[in-house]
């Protein structure tokens, strides 16, 4: 710290900025610099932005609150409430047997179904799908139907809000291929024997 020769104002040697007299704390000095201009502007801009924000959202209320936003989003997606598959006519449906469909079905199975029926279909929470018994019917149409309508009181939810018709048919076709396989630790038979 050097005294300026021409007046008594103390200046910082390295920057030439004015030091505040009497501001010394355990040898820490303070400079008499102004607030940086860009900083002041930044502060002002955020304050103005905030006033406008509150005015728009909460005073004149022309910007939507979240409930409106949700309605707008649903409308934009062209949906009324949650998405749903169209009803599937199950009479005389024939299971798909081509490999791409069965592979796609298997992929859905792994993601959605195995957490209750286990990977090989041996059953744990849900019934064993490999044996020759069934609670909700044995045909391909029956399997499609139970996936669509579910049996929530037994724990099987309806999947029509989460799977498309195409996906339901593919995963049901995959389920048909499980029958007769012998995964480990099968769950004891439930329901009626299939004819």
């Amino acid at each position, binding site marked *: 710290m050097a005294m300026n020769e021409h007046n008594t104002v103390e200046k*910082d040697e*390295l*920057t030439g*900025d004015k030091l505040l007299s009497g*501001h010394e*704390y*355990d*040898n*820490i*000095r*303070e*400079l*008499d*610099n*102004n*607030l*940086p201009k860009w*900083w002041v502007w*930044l*502060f002002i801009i*955020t*304050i103005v*932005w*905030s006033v406008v*924000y*509150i005015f728009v*959202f*909460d005073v004149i209320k022309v910007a939507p*609150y*979240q*409930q409106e*936003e*949700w*309605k707008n989003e*649903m409308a934009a*997606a*062209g949906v*009324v*409430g*949650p*998405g749903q598959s169209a009803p599937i006519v199950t009479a005389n449906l024939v299971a798909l047997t081509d490999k791409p469909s069965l592979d796609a079905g298997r992929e859905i199975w792994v*993601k*959605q179904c195995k*957490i*209750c029926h*286990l990977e090989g279909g041996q059953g*744990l*929470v849900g019934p064993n799908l490999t044996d020759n018994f069934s609670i909700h019917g044995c045909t391909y149409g029956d399997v499609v139907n139970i996936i669509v309508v579910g049996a*929530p*009181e037994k*724990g099987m*939810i*309806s999947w029509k*809000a*989460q*799977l*498309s018709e*195409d*996906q339901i048919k593919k995963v049901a076709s995959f389920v048909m291929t499980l029958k007769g396989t012998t995964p480990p630790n099968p769950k*004891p038979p439930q329901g009626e024997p299939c004819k």
Partner: protein
Amino acid sequence: MENQTFYYDNKIVKNFAYATLFWGVIGMVVGLLLALQFIWPALTFGIPYTTFGRIRPIHTNAVIFAFVGNGMFTGIYYSLQRLCKARMFNDLLSKINFWGWQLIIVFAALSFAGGMTTGKEYAELEWPIDLLVAVIWLVFGANMIGTIIKRRTQHIYVAIWFYIATFVTITVLHVVNSLAIPVNLFKSYPIYAGVQDALVQWWYGHNAVAFFLTTPFLGLMYYYLPKAANRPIYSYRLSIVHFWALIFLYIWAGPHHLLYSALPGWAQSLGVVFSVMLIAPSWGGMVNGLLTLRGAWDRVREDPVLKFMVVAVTAYGMSTFEGPMMSTKTVNAISHFTDWTVGHAHIGALGWNGFLTFAVLYYLIPRMFQTQLYSRKIANLHFWIGTLGIIFYAVPLYWGAITQASMWKEFTADGFLKYPNFLETVTQLKPMYAARAIGGGLYIVGIVLGIYNLILTIRAGKFVPEEAASAPALVRAEGKRGSGEGMHRWLERRPVQFMLVALVAILIGGLIEIVPLYLVKTNIPTIASVKPYTPLELQGRDIYVREGCYTCHSQQVRPFRSETERYGEYAKAGEYVYDHPFQWGSKRNGPDLSREGVVSGRQYKPNSWHYNHMLNPQRLNEQSIMPVYKWLITDDLDISTTAKKIRVMQFLGVPYPQGYDKIANDDLMIQARGIADDLKSQGIQVEPTKEIIAMIAYLQRLGKDVHAAGMPTAAVTTK
């Protein structure tokens, strides 16, 4: 005026410094274990005490209150004495502060591992420990104020302003947020419920960040940075403006943790704008710090202390810009419930708090031991490994957060969720979680090097427990403002008035936000079908709280198509009125659970699924990172507490019928037998008296009442 000779108490500083290092390692190693549990869930070891939900609070509390807390005390006890030219007010208070704080930390760790928790983030301590925290904190405050009052300097320096603001605000936050009615020594219910509890909690949570992790460390920066650089503070005026703006504005910003929640829209708006207005006041601290280094940048390259400080202050600037951005609804819709928040928090904790703490330790330990730092090379190595650790920690999490948020929101052309199974969006992140664990590991390696370096420094030096100093006694200026004396300059020599003004500044925002939630009924519209929990569900809920389920599962469906499609009806304020405490959560490592019990919903699972899932989640899906909860199946539910719990709930306004406490356990057993019978029909033999039964009862209740209100999302016509 003749000089008085006195002695700085270095011993208390040394104790706090050692505690900082000790708890720092423990807190971070627990963090690393948590990080590894994302990759190998078996690392929860299948026992309660090491399960994610219980040790996550140990990690957060240890890092915040044990590592940063002791670091803060270290820095304050050293600098306050020197800035006041006085020894600490009372040695006994110093010792009580030190040993009391360490005792709290030990109690905290044991109680969290034991499942004693309030279920409120960063305020998980149960009421007896909360009381102890309050007492010890007041001891610290008394000791600090006493020291300031017997100071030998006319004015109090800006660092002390920040220390004062820290003390008054943390006192207010801790007391208000911890108000609870005890059930017994180990369990209490907060007096607030649902939306109100959420607002009070995040008013606290956000300002714990502000006034425990920010203001004291700005104070430390204002002392140690100019000392280490031997440069004057860039602008006194800036320090005044940014100090008052910061403490006044910060307190309002809590609701930004609750955007798109059931919190009323006006309160969310306040959370947004006050967060955005915080950018400049926060950056004021960074600017004043960095510009103080003008003319000394050549030394930054050589001096590890300055290096750590520069990165700390830069990290502070980064996270105080990122924070306000995350508080805008646009960004929050993506970042909330993801690892973005976790990455953001760690830029602050590892960068700002961690690096500044080490800068302070590297500064004061050689001085107290009258020696030089043992090795500059090792300190530099620590610096680079630590910096690399922060980058490796944060970048993968940001990447993962955006990946996961996109997956949550993606629809197929048919209008179905592309990834309806939540687990897919978690499995996708495993490589990022691995990288994060490596980042955290590197940071710990850095700390170990730092400790090694400090130990060798300590060995080479000779400790000065009582450091002699001298200064003239203070001739107090007149109480009244002198001619030409600025208003603020006057306040700087009136610490008690200063404290009162600061108190008023921090009370305004909280009062304006919290009080209307009690007085204005339209803020929380009633839903007639929402009824109190049955005794079994209440007990189950308390197990949910005990196990810290909220650390991974939210109970707050946001009004986005992607969430109402995945979970069901979006959250309503009225559905949480009996939730003491609220359990909305802040991070989804697993799916939201608030619609779990809606039988016709997408999330519904039968009792037997929950049983099997708690017993062995990986059997149902080997990718699952859910911990095993098999003790719920073997442990008996403690129903001796039911009557007392019902009475406390009644006291808090939950409308159980008069005298219900006496028959509550009868109802409990009837409901429990029903669930046990259902499980039996599925081939599962379990006594109705086990904890799992209560847990299942609670999970199956979630969302039922809202659904019964006949306001399912599907009923809202949009065209």
